[in-house]
């Protein structure tokens, strides 16, 4: 059937595209400005999760529907893998983040090279694999943009003609410019590119919205909902094969391999490493990302099958299945939606190009170009050169992608190109994973695995691709090279049950892993390598934020170090690096400090990669590198020290708190002693004064003598009471003393206590009212202690009731279990916040200070605490009811005697 597609003018589409890219520039610029003012936008976990969605490229946007239209759910493994991986992030990615931040890792190549002893050779190999592996993937993005542009403007799906090629070039160049501006803002590649990340997160939103809009439009505007669409699809013979798992996937083994492949891809693709690790602000961002990112994947896959079905039903073979997403709205005449879909696809493509190029350019400059440059005559300002190299690398990468697209990119579908790239970066998997968890993995093993894996990858996946385009003899595929059947690229060693990709992934990863493991076991790591292995494998045990361990011996002449820093980072940054170290060390830097070498190495690593940084620092260090034994010793010591220092920190905190409690107690004790002292001095003053008066004045008359002697006696009694109170309390505190629990008639105790204090009340002119107490109420208590409580309460009440107008009432109530004794005064009352305090030892609450009765402490402040001790020991409780100005009522309960 011939579909009629509504097209749009090329100028309009190009104009809108450029406007959109302009918007990206504005976003990146604004966010970078904000970041420069210290207000980071990308610290948000949501922005982080969205930036991770750079995983979804035009392959997802256009290719998933294309694949679904021919192979059903075969598109799913690509998203199941990352979703599964996201679950592992809190373990795996956290470790990577710790390592990357401490070692100042800039790229995945840097990461792997650093793990295996910071060798440039390994870094270069990984960088090469990434560049070669990812270039086709870049080309794929350009192809997708160009193809959708052609379709939208001409209605034709052929990938020929002049104009669309130029469109791809225009897009490529704009992307290159964007990346050069926002991807190389700082020499230090570990510094974040906030604008770039914000733009990527924005693109993730745009592509998701565009795809959902297309899905909703097709399902609800072109069909009557998903049910109707699928009902119609079920009748269509062309779609029958899609519902079979076997037909779509080829088998569980293929399926599992593809999931494994995409798990590797989400972790190892240079752009994913860039957004997930290098651009990460804080580990805490992971928590939200590990559910938000899978949710994003779910949403963007929601309409893949409906769109594929609709495409087959409405368009059939009129356009390639990869173009269904765009062609469906065009066929329905929805130009605005077609334009939106085009922008969404462009978002998906450009996001990938920007980040991938940034990461690849860093690898190219640091790992491929710089090593050669360092050996040449030293340039004065290498840093500026490095930025230029990085920018040139961006342009070259983008143009190579364009070239690849022009020369070879037209023969294959989006998905197959993407999967071949996935398979290439998956070769880093064994060395990466082993590096994180297997201490015995060696550099030789990594080399062997990477080399063999990549070779098999090229043979099983690149050669068929090249043979299909006629670059290599086609009989290699059918009969094997030189007729050797076992080496047939698509049926290596006779294995022909797997699909092309699964076959290549199976053999390359199997042999890669085998080579890595066996060669690692057969070789021994050198000192630097062992050290790095320990730092990587034990990364989580070292805790976040701890500085790198100094693996240098001896020192370096400061001027040389300074010259090196200036040469790479420029004078200003170089000075800043040294200042930073000085500040951390609290002042001076001495040139015999291995820590300084480590600090400088780290600073350089951020700019030029760990391998080159190591070589440069080694070239000026005074002493030979450490041997294996030394390194292991240092590491053990460091981890011990860290262990101890963490423990020490915990103990210090405990001590600090204990100390604070002690100080508080000490202060209370001082107050108490001061109060007691004052209370003891007052009667002593009278006693001494009158003794001296009596001694010095023999002429006093008898009445006066008697009066003064009486005062001396009373004050002596008062003194005794005070001393007893203090002793009582000390005894109660220690829980000591004999308690004789017996039935006690409450009425008697109250009467005795009232009699004992009657004199005080008379002197103060305060009325003491005893309400009649039922003589049958008997409580179980120690009679003397109970009386002490009553004496305390009556003594307090007389102190606080107003002289002359005071009135104190004592009453007793009883329920089934307890008797409750109340002593009410009409004094000034007690503020609510003090009502609990007054029962604590050494405190006298508002009665001593701040309240209306400031000035004089009343008694030792022990009366109420003593009473509380006694009441609680008798199984009751004591409390006060009061409001300021309204008097106070002290109540306490005692258990009734039940036996009698």
């Amino acid at each position, binding site marked *: 059937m011939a579909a009629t597609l509504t097209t749009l003018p090329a100028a309009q589409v190009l104009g809108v595209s450029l406007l959109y890219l302009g918007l990206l520039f504005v976003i990146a610029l604004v966010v970078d400005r904000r970041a420069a003012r210290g207000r980071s936008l990308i610290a948000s976990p949501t922005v982080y999760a969205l930036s991770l969605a750079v995983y979804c490229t035009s392959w997802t946007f256009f290719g998933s529907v294309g694949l679904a239209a021919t192979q059903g759910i075969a598109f799913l493994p690509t998203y199941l893998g990352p979703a599964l991986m996201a679950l592992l992030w809190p373990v795996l990615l956290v470790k990577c983040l710790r390592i990357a931040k401490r070692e100042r890792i800039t790229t995945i190549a840097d990461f792997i090279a650093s793990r295996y002893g910071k060798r440039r050779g390994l870094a270069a190999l990984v960088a090469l694999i990434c560049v070669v592996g990812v270039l086709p993937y870049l080309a794929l993005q350009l192809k997708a943009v160009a193809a959708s542009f052609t379709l939208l403007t001409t209605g034709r799906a052929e990938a020929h003609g002049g104009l669309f090629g130029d469109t791809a070039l225009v897009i490529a160049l704009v992307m290159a410019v964007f990346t050069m501006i926002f991807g190389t803002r700082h020499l230090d590649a570990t510094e974040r590119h906030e604008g770039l990340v914000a733009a990527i997160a924005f693109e993730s939103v745009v592509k998701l919205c565009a795809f959902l809009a297309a899905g909703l439009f097709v399902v609800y505007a072109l069909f009557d909902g998903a049910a109707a669409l699928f009902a119609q699809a079920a009748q269509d013979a062309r779609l029958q094969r899609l519902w079979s798992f076997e037909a779509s996937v080829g088998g569980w083994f293929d399926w599992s391999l593809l999931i494994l492949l995409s798990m590797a891809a989400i972790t190892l693709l240079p752009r994913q490493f860039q957004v997930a690790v290098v651009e990460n602000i804080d580990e805490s961002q992971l928590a939200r990302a590990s559910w938000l990112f899978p949710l994003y994947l779910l949403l963007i896959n929601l309409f893949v099958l409906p769109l594929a079905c609709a495409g087959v039903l409405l368009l059939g073979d009129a356009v390639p299945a990869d173009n269904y997403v765009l062609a469906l709205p065009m066929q329905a005449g929805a130009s605005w939606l077609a334009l939106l879909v085009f922008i969404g696809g462009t978002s998906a493509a450009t996001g990938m190009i920007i980040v991938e190029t940034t990461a690849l350019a860093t690898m190219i400059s640091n790992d491929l170009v710089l090593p050669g440059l360092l050996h040449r005559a030293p340039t004065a300002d290498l840093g500026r050169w490095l930025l230029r190299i990085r920018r040139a690398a961006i342009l070259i990468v983008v143009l190579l992608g364009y070239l690849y697209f022009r020369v070879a990119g037209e023969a294959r579908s989006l998905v197959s190109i993407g999967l071949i790239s996935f398979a290439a970066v998956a070769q880093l998997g064994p060395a990466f994973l082993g590096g994180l968890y297997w201490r015995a993995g060696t550099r030789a093993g990594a080399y062997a695995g990477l080399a063999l894996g990549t070779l098999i990858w090229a043979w099983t996946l690149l050669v068929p691709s090249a043979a299909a385009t006629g670059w290599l003899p086609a009989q290699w595929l059918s009969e094997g090279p030189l007729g050797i059947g076992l080496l047939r690229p698509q049926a290596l060693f006779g294995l022909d049950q797997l699909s092309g990709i699964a076959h290549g992934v199976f053999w390359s990863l199997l042999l890669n892993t085998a080579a890595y493991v066996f060669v690692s076991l057969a070789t021994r790591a050198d000192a630097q390598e062992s050290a790095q292995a320990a730092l990587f494998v034990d990364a989580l045990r070292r805790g976040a934020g701890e500085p790198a361990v100094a693996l240098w011996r001896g020192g370096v002449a400061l001027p040389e170090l300074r010259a090196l820093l200036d040469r790479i980072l420029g004078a200003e940054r170089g000075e800043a690096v040294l200042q930073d170290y000085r500040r951390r060390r609290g002042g001076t830097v001495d040139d015999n400090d291995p820590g300084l070498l480590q600090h400088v190495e780290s600073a350089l690593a951020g700019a030029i990669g760990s391998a080159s940084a190591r070589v440069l620092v080694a070239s000026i260090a005074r002493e030979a590198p450490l041997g294996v034994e030394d390194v292991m010793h240092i590491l053990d010591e460091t981890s011990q020290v860290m262990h101890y220092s963490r423990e020490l920190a915990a103990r210090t905190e405990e001590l600090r708190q204990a100390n604070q409690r002690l100080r508080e107690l000490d202060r209370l004790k001082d107050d108490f002693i001061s109060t007691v002292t004052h209370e003891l001095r007052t009667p002593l003053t009278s006693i001494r*004064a009158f003794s001296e008066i009596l001694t010095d004045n023999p002429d006093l008359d008898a009445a006066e003598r008697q009066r003064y002697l009486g005062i001396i006696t009373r*004050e002596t009694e008062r003194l005794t009471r005070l001393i007893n109170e203090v002793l009582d309390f000390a005894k109660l505190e220690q829980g000591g003393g004999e308690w004789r629990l017996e039935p006690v008639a409450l009425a008697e105790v109250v009467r005795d206590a009232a009699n004992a204090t009657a004199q005080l009340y008379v002197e103060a002119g305060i009325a003491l009212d005893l309400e009649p107490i039922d003589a049958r109420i008997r409580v179980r208590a120690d009679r003397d202690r109970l009386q002490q409580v009553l004496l305390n309460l009556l003594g307090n009440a007389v102190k606080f009731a107003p002289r002359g107008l005071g009135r104190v009432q004592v009453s007793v109530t009883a329920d089934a279990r307890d008797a409750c004794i109340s002593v009410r005064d009409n004094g000034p009352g007690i503020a609510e916040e003090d009502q609990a305090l007054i029962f604590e030892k050494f405190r006298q609450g508002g009665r001593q200070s701040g309240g209306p009765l*400031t000035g004089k402490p009343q008694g030792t402040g022990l009366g109420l605490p003593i009473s509380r001790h006694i009441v609680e020991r008798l199984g009751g409780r004591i409390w006060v009811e009061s409001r300021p100005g309204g008097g106070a009522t002290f109540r306490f309960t005692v258990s009734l005697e039940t036996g009698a």
Partner: protein
Amino acid sequence: MTTKRVLIADDEENIVVSLEFLLRRLGCDVSVARDGAEALRQAQATVPDLILLDVMMPGVSGYDVCQQLRADARFAGTRIVLLTAKGREAEIARGRALGADDYIVKPFSTRELSARIRALLGLGTV
């Protein structure tokens, strides 16, 4: 020589009694206040030659009374002696800073107290 007027401000009854006795023996005209506020009122009314001022009194403390009197020119000639049961260096210093002429720590020797008051009031030996 005119009779010296002395104001005793203390809330401890028995101490007041002993001070009253000692001061009368020195031939002074004695009045008594039971708290800081009353001390201020009486001082305003009589402008005594000397005030024996207990530091820890209910309401307005001895320090407050001392400070307020020293801010008033009418009391330039009034001697102020602080009485305290604490007697720490810091308190003595504070009293001096507020303008107290002397500082007596409880319990005190009656002979010494008498001697100091005599000196402050410019009384000869009896």
